[in-house]
């Protein structure tokens, strides 16, 4: 039977496409036409959507390289006529780019590290151990995910503005401490799993640890390994992919975050905050240097804002290109379900 089939295949392969089509009564032709049509449609659709996503970045890049007169020239759309890098210089000055970049890197790295470490511990606790209030506590995690931080921001803001531990400081110095302009509250919040999107990370870690076979740890327990040592030497090496991706997400989201930055990190020069003020700075600059009461024109503001945005996301884009797999793959491993 099989030899007959093979012979048939050999026969078919030796024949031309049209011969085979005739043999299958037109089915082969129909099938290949269908495949080609599907391919063309898919390619068009994907090209369109990719263009849709990339177009703003390309547009910003082009605009950022134009001199001011190009912006008003309706002949110039994408390719600048007077190529210039002055916009970058100006945007860097407005944002104090070097200092802000350094601060942003430090803050993003440290908060992401603190946050991910704590969320990992909590996620592991939820995945592996049974204790009395576990279900209630996990409901709280879901609650943390869905409560907009804005709801509690008012109260937290006041709390840190007049920070005091049961009145000790007030008794000693007469006033409470203003923690609003320092980094400490934000680190405390990250350590308490209440930072930016912490609930989500706990959820992801829990899903990941639940999918690792329990036998691994049981073997370790039988061999006399303690619970914490088992976690460090058995579970941690397994969890590398999820740690990488959560860390990357945390880093990136912290980098671009504006809400927590504005509320809790008011005084530190961070890129996201600097970027949001760039328009006003440009306005003031134009008013001062050119004596133009109207301030910067719409087109020019747009140009400088685009340049600033590009400068803020450039490090992230580079990171993304190199660590693309880390972003995407590990989420696939968690098998998120509700």
């Amino acid at each position, binding site marked *: 039977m099989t030899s007959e089939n093979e012979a048939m295949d050999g026969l078919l392969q030796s024949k031309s496409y049209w011969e085979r089509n005739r043999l299958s009564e037109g089915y082969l032709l129909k099938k290949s036409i269908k495949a080609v049509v599907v391919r063309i449609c898919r390619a068009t659709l994907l090209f369109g959507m990719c263009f849709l*996503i990339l177009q703003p970045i390309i547009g910003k890049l082009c605009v950022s390289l134009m001199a001011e007169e190009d912006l008003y020239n309706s002949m110039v759309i994408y390719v600048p006529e007077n190529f210039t890098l002055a916009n970058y210089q100006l945007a860097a000055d407005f944002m104090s780019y070097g200092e802000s970049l350094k601060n942003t890197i430090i803050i993003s790295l440290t908060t992401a590290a603190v946050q991910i470490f704590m969320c990992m511990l909590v996620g592991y606790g939820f995945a592996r151990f049974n204790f009395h209030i576990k279900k209630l506590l996990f409901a709280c995690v879901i609650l943390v995910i869905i409560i907009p931080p804005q709801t509690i921001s008012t109260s937290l803001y006041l709390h840190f503005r007049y920070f005091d531990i049961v009145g000790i400081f007030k008794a000693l110095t007469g006033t409470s401490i203003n923690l609003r302009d320092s980094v400490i509250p934000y680190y405390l919040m990250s350590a308490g799993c209440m930072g930016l999107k912490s609930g989500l990370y706990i959820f992801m870690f829990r899903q990941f640890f639940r999918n690792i076979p329990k036998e691994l740890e049981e073997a370790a327990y039988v061999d006399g390994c303690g619970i914490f040592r088992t976690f460090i030497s058995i579970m941690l090496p397994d969890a590398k992919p999820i740690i990488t991706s959560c860390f990357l997400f945390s880093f990136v989201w912290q980098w671009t975050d504006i809400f927590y930055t504005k*509320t809790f990190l008011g005084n530190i020069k961070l890129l996201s905050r600097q*970027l949001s003020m760039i328009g006003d700075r440009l306005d003031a600059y134009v008013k001062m240097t050119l004596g133009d009461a109207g301030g910067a024109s719409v087109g020019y503001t747009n140009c400088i804002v685009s340049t600033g945005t590009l400068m803020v996301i450039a490090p992230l884009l580079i990171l993304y290109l190199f660590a693309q797999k880390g972003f995407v793959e590990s989420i696939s491993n968690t098998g998120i379900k509700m």
Partner: protein
Amino acid sequence: MSRQKKPVGLEKRKVIAGYLFTLPFTLGFLIFMVRPLIQSLYMSFSNVDVSAGGFKILFAGLVNYIRAFTIDIEFNRLLVEEILRMCINAPAIIVFSFFSALILNQKFVGRGIVRVIFFLPVILSSGVILGVEYNNSLLAGMQDMIANSNAGTSITGAIQKILVTSGVGTRAFRIVFEIVDGIYDVAISSGIQIIIFLSGLQTIPHSMYEAAEIEGCTAWEKLWKITFPMISPLFLVNWVYTIVDFCMRSDNQVMEKIRSEMVVQINYGFSSAMAWIYFVIVMAIIAVSSFIISKGVYYYDE
């Protein structure tokens, strides 16, 4: 005797370890969530008086809520606008990300690059980058003007005109066109959702499709009878994620108003009241919609 005791000891240790591991969350939740939550609820019913030495909370009843709904000129409008936008965009995001995931799950040349581009919005649509374009009011006005002046020349505008003049264009169509015009918003906010759907698609056993093919299933039937039920739990996850994400976006106008009321106007009571109104509405939407969706969810394992 000792042999019986040992597992009990381990079980006990495990319970303690469970508490220890989740301790950071418990502490953080109590200090940074429960306490502020109660305080902000209390503040929403009071007037907060801030002075140099500290702050005083004076109970004032429903004043702030009444002010939000009846006196404040912006709040009602912003609230309705944002919730309508959410009701239109969230389903669109789910559908878009589902079909994108279906396409990205197929094999074709250049899939790697396309995936990289599709997940780019995860970075680009977060935080300040989304909001900065709407930052300058003059700029926003200008953009509106350009959008209006171009309305006649855009393809959707033309089709809409044809449909309206021929008497087909109804309200339902207008919503469709709004979604089509806002496809960029949809595309950039569906990065994570695509990843989640994609991970779900990859966990569906291949043997299921093979069996269906042998039984003579068409691709269309496979989509509805296998793919759809198998990843239906992810619709719930994505739905909740989309709504939550929508509420926390930095260009959300209600949030912007709450924040400016708090930081610029220093009116803590009023901003807490607005935050609570918004929070309760969003919670209600999430609860009702996830209850409805969860009726249709199919769990393969159980």
